């Protein structure tokens, strides 16, 4: 009993450790990071809890009445009290639709980045650790992939699949297609960063020490090198999530992404675009503001994280 | 009048939650042309002393209080313009790593001539001539050609010679050398040390040599300061300190050298580690590692005071000396 209290007193909890570490300290001292984190958490939580927060279900055609279309938000005269942010062209409650759309955008962004990270980290680790011909081959593949812009690859891929499967099937699986195409198009970012870190880590003596102890290459890569290459992976992950959300929004805006029946932020902006000159600006502008704020705070967090984790500024 | 007179120099570092004291009341004098060694292990504050003397500390470090009188002026209160006029001109510094000190994208000649022209009213050709003379002084073969070369084209020993030539360029009164040969091989180290010694002697230049190597100090300097955890714990003539160290730490440091023990025997080690600046024990900072420590050592910081020829900061030094005397009588 007494020994238990001893250990709990001497070993602080994981959260307290992080809070007192360099990262925790620089976070506490950085108002931009705090505000960004707060806004990001608010957006992410409301997106996650959208079924509870949203007064209407925008995916349920039964709850939509076309007669309710294009009501303005509450601060404009002529608004209806039950639609706080107004309605879109189909009569959906804009507040509910934005919540669901943000959830979709975040989901696609994070899953696409997870796919990128998986591909990029595996390829980068192998290329960096094995070196030689395999390294040249994998990195030339990455160069080729990078020489096509993400949007171009995505547009071609999505257009072809849409034509192949028909828009009915496509709309059904649009989320997966988007995740796959954004995930595959951007893996070289990860592969290059990871490879560069691995090349630097590989020269360190702890890797030699592991080799002298007879560990196999798989173990050395995963147990020794990878944990020491995480800082740059974290940094690019934030930036990549922001990029993936933008990519998804652009594709949806171009009509190659989420269908209007399941709108993400991008397709919402797109659907409102036709009405912008007829006075219903809110259908485009409000989701647009949400998108910009979301991407901005993620990028600001990424900037902060890069400053903290930059090994040149802080040795740990 | 002494060339440099340091009084109660205290340097602090502003850390996250607290301010730590890196140098604690350092006082010493240096006469014109005198060579002084500052010895200590990493974390003792010897490099910080060097930077503080030139007022080169950058945040989070700062001089808390104290006085550095150099040729009658206080370096601590100088403004930026006065500091620029002093640094490199009357007081020069040689760093550990020659590759970092030289700018890799400028030729040796550009770096030397720029330095000269920044401090003296000279034409480019006059500056070039002085640079060649200085390179010759440090035994650089064919100096005219070297002026056109970039630092990476030269070997480590050659680079360190050029750094010494740059330090001597404006005929300074004082050179502060911070581990000038640690990055070099022994044979080259011996050459560079010999060169530095010769130049200091012939030009009457003061030298502060900061190093961890007692052998180097013994060969290069006339007086030595031994530092531990930000304080001077022993000061005096180098020969006295090497032959008859008074402070238990100095004794331990000298006895720990492999030369002091027969081959294959256990070395006389000092147990433990130097305390970190955030965690200096109360009393004498050396007390947890000291075999002679008493309750007094654990509670009160010893003042540095004269014991015979040397100055020592140790409560127990008299007891140690009488022990030594007894041992000598027995022998």
């Amino acid at each position: 009993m007494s020994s238990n209290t001893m250990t709990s007193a001497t070993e602080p909890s994981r959260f307290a450790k992080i809070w007192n570490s360099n990262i925790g300290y620089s976070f506490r001292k950085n108002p931009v990071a705090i505000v960004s984190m707060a806004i990001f958490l608010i957006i992410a939580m409301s997106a996650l809890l959208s079924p509870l927060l949203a007064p209407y279900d925008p995916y349920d055609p039964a709850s939509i009445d076309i007669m309710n279309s294009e009501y303005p938000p509450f601060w404009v005269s002529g608004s209806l009290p039950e639609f706080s942010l107004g309605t879109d062209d189909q009569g959906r409650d804009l507040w509910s639709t934005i919540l669901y759309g943000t959830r979709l955008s975040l989901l696609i962004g994070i899953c696409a980045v997870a796919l990128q990270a998986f591909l990029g980290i595996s390829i980068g680790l192998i290329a960096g650790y094995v070196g030689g011909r395999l390294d040249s081959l994998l990195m030339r593949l990455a160069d080729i992939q990078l020489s096509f812009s993400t949007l171009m690859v995505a547009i071609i891929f999505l257009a072809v699949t849409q034509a192949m499967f028909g828009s009915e099937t496509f709309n059904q699986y649009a989320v997966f297609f988007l995740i796959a195409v954004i995930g595959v198009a951007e893996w070289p970012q990860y592969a290059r960063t990871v490879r560069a870190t691995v090349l630097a880590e590989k020269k360190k003596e702890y890797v030699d020490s592991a080799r002298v102890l007879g560990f196999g290459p798989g173990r050395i890569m995963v147990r020794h090198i990878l944990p020491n290459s995480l800082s740059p992976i974290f940094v690019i992950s934030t930036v990549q999530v922001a990029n993936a959300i933008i990519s998804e929004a652009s594709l949806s805006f171009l009509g190659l992404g989420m269908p209007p029946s399941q709108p993400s932020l991008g397709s919402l902006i797109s659907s409102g675009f036709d009405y912008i000159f007829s006075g219903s600006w809110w259908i485009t502008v409000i989701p647009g503001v949400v998108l910009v704020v979301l991407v901005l705070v993620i990028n600001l967090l990424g900037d902060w994280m890069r400053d903290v984790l930059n090994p040149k500024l802080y040795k740990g | 009048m002494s060339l440099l007179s340091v009084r109660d120099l205290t340097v602090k570092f502003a850390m996250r939650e607290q301010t730590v004291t890196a140098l604690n009341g350092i006082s010493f004098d240096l006469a014109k042309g005198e060579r002084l060694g500052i010895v200590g292990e990493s974390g003792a504050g010897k490099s910080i002393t060097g930077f503080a003397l030139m007022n080169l500390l950058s945040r989070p470090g700062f001089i808390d209080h104290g006085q550095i009188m150099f040729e009658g002026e206080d370096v601590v209160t100088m403004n930026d313009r006065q500091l620029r006029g002093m640094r490199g001109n009357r007081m020069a510094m040689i760093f550990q790593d020659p590759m970092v000190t030289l700018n890799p994208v400028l030729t040796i000649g550009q770096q030397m001539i720029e330095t000269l022209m920044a401090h003296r009213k000279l034409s480019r050709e006059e500056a070039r001539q002085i640079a060649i003379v200085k390179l010759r002084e440090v035994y650089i073969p064919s100096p005219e050609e070297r002026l056109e070369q970039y630092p990476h084209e030269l070997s480590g020993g050659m680079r360190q010679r050029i750094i010494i030539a740059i330090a001597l360029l404006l005929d300074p009164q004082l050179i502060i050398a911070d581990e000038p040969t640690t990055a070099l091989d022994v044979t080259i180290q011996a050459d560079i040390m010999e060169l530095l010694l010769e130049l200091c002697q012939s030009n009457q230049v003061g030298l502060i040599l900061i190093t961890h190597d007692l052998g180097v100090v013994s060969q290069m300097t006339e007086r030595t300061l031994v530092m531990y955890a930000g304080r001077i714990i022993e000061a005096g003539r180098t020969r006295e300190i090497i032959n008859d160290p008074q402070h238990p730490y100095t004794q331990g440091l000298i006895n720990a050298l492999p030369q002091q023990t027969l081959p294959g025997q256990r070395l006389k080690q000092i147990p433990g580690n130097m305390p970190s600046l955030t965690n200096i024990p109360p009393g004498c900072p050396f007390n947890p590692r000291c075999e002679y420590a008493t309750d007094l050592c654990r509670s009160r910081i010893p003042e540095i005071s004269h014991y015979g020829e040397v100055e020592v900061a140790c409560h127990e030094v008299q007891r140690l000396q009488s022990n030594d005397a007894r041992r000598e009588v027995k022998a």
Partner: protein
Amino acid sequence: MKDMATQPALLEIKGLEKRFDLDQGFLETVKFKGGRITREARSVHAVNNVSLDVGRGEALCVVGESGCGKSTVARLVAGLLTPSAGEIHYEGQRIDDLSRHDMLPLRKKIQMIFQNPYASLNPRMTILQALEEPVRHHNPKYSAAEVRDKVTEVMMSVGVDPTWIKRYPHEFSGGQRQRIAIARALTVDPEFIIADEPISALDVSIQAQVLNLMLEAKESRGLTYLFITHDLSVVEHFGTRVAVLYLGTVCEVAETATLFSNPKHPYTRALLSAVPQLKDDRPNHIRLKGEIPTPINLPQGCPFESRCAFANGRCKSEKPRAIHQPDGSMVACHALEEGRLDADAPGL
């Protein structure tokens, strides 16, 4: 040396060579020279025809200045590099061409300690993880308790408090980290340890601690050392025999006491005279002329010829062979062989 003859050497290095290619890939080797396009690959000759042997229980010190190839020799023996030519035998078995799998049993016998204790421990692993990993890897049948016992045992033997086991390397000082690195090498109960400058990154008072620890381990575990260093005072204290390397070539191999009392090769003499001494009774150091040649274009003759005060025409054109001296040392020097320099005058 005399009793060595009856006992076969534990480690034998025969004619070891290592070249590092400077021009990698086909395109870099293509050069335009004298109006013709030729293929030419430049390489750094890091180790040239090095032959050494280490007897059981010995501590062979390899000394030399930076760039002399001493670390490369250590890495070759540890199997971190593959030799360009030559052989390495351990207990009579050739080890330089083994696959990783065949090498595994030898990994338990041959271990290495590295120079920089700040880099040789994985910063993201606790001490416990770092020490348990090799024990588990080499003894898959051990129970958790046996693994833990082994870890506690090695930690005690290097003098690190076993209750600190959950901490990360950055929480330790340099000396403690080097102790932990030694503990890690000892977890597999090796008999041969390659130590690559194990104390040169440490403070003087800590160097003594680590050196004592290595001496204790040598006695209690019957270890054999291949000790790489540039510090001659450490060699005098620690080594039973010394090999002096210059530009990847062995100049002189001798028993420690013989080498320090009677250095024969002109380079060894210069090296010894350059060590700063505490007491001022040393003779002036021998100033070497010139600079160390680059190991890219090796001189045809003796590698030390360009800086040697005794060199003549033969030294320029012919590589000296290592020749046995009456006191048991091996010296590669034409001048000594021809009696041009007095073998019995230390420090000239």
